[in-house]
């Protein structure tokens, strides 16, 4: 979903350079991911089904506005190197403790999550390359 970086952050970014914004981007991304999970009504059963059916999060679950939002986040944040499976668990563990626990404890779910992170990184990287060209 398209979003706007708050004005406060822009001011700080202007004072201290892009460093502060770059540091904030992963935190903003956590909020975005938690928002997406809330909107999709993710729970333990749904997450288990995703893992068992090997669902592709990027194409099958994320709506176009979510994909656009993540791409823009990556563009402003200078990439998605911060996007890892651990980061995802950290992002959702406050609002979705069961789902986070599932990814931590169940090996199959952990592997699935890693694969999804790689897919998202690849898609975002490809989009950035296209934009540069």
């Amino acid at each position, binding site marked *: 979903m398209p979003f706007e970086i708050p004005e406060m952050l822009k001011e700080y970014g202007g004072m201290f350079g892009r460093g502060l914004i770059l540091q904030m981007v992963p935190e903003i991304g956590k909020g975005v991911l938690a928002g997406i999970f809330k909107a999709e009504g993710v729970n333990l059963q749904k997450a288990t089904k995703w893992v068992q059916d090997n669902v592709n999060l990027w194409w099958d679950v994320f709506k176009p506005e979510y994909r656009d939002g993540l791409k823009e986040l990556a563009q402003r944040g200078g990439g998605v190197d911060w996007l890892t499976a651990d980061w995802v668990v950290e992002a959702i563990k406050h609002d979705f403790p069961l789902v986070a626990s599932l990814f*931590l404890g*169940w090996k199959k779910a952990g592997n699935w999550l890693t694969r999804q992170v790689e897919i998202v990184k690849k898609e975002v990287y490809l989009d950035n390359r296209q934009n540069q060209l």
Partner: protein
Amino acid sequence: MAVKDVFSPKPVNQIDPKSTKEELGEWEKKRKEAKAQREYMEEQRNIDRILQPEQPPEPQFQVRGGVNIDIDPLRDAKEARETSERVRKEKEDEVKEEKAKRERAEEERRKAEDDLKKSEMASAIKELGGQFATALKEMNTKIDAVKAGADPVSLVSQFSALEQLTKKINEIRMEGGGGVNPSIQLEITKLNIESARAEREFQVKMKQDDRNWELEKIKLQDQRYFKQQEAERQQRKDDMFASAPQVLGGAIARGIMEKQAGRVSGSVPPPTTSKTPQHHVEAPVGEAGEVECAGCSQPVAIGPTARNAVCSNCGMKYSVRRIEGQPTIEEE
């Protein structure tokens, strides 16, 4: 013949060192010039880049500001209700008008019939009176003739003549009271038929109007339902948009607090594994479930084929034993 001196070789190419040095100097000069020119061009390009920097790429499509939605379910419901009321009233007024017209026509027809009957009665009575007068005159003439010595008429014949006269009078009276002129009867019948036809047409129109009214009502109800659904959908979208800044703010606040606590963003330390004795969880085969963490009472998820479970809050590990029945926790 001159003898060639083969012992002292003749130089083929005479190279004057002084001139060579000069040529070299020329090339050196040219090389320096070219280098200077190249550096100059480079500097020019840098200057141009500074004076006319490249335009940054256009930002992607963004949605800013608030959303102005002009959907008010209450107002729409009210409008729909008012429209349905207005249409209903119009229909009712039309029906009333039609009824009044019909009644007026009926009254006029009855009046015309009554007038006709009255005139007929009057003319019949007049005729009757005329006939009676004529009969009386004849009787008087006969009586006078009898008095004058004419052929005497017997009492019986007189009585029979009187009886016949009375019969005739009665007949005339009956015809005058119940009977009507055929042409007038025809007109009355025509009027009756016309009125029956008008009545039928009115009934049909009333049914048609009722049906149309029902359809209109259903249409208005559907419109109201769709508008309500639209308003609810829009409300849900607005709530999502409205909550986005809160979620964003929460994430930023969490990030700032975590930074202050000395954690690095983007890299997550794994949950600290507990050094207390391992916990075991029994879970049915092939089923997912959840249990309460023994350490922090947070819910811990167990995957359908998982052999381990980890609490996302405190990092306590559980090993999963698969059996038939409900999952429980056992401490080793």
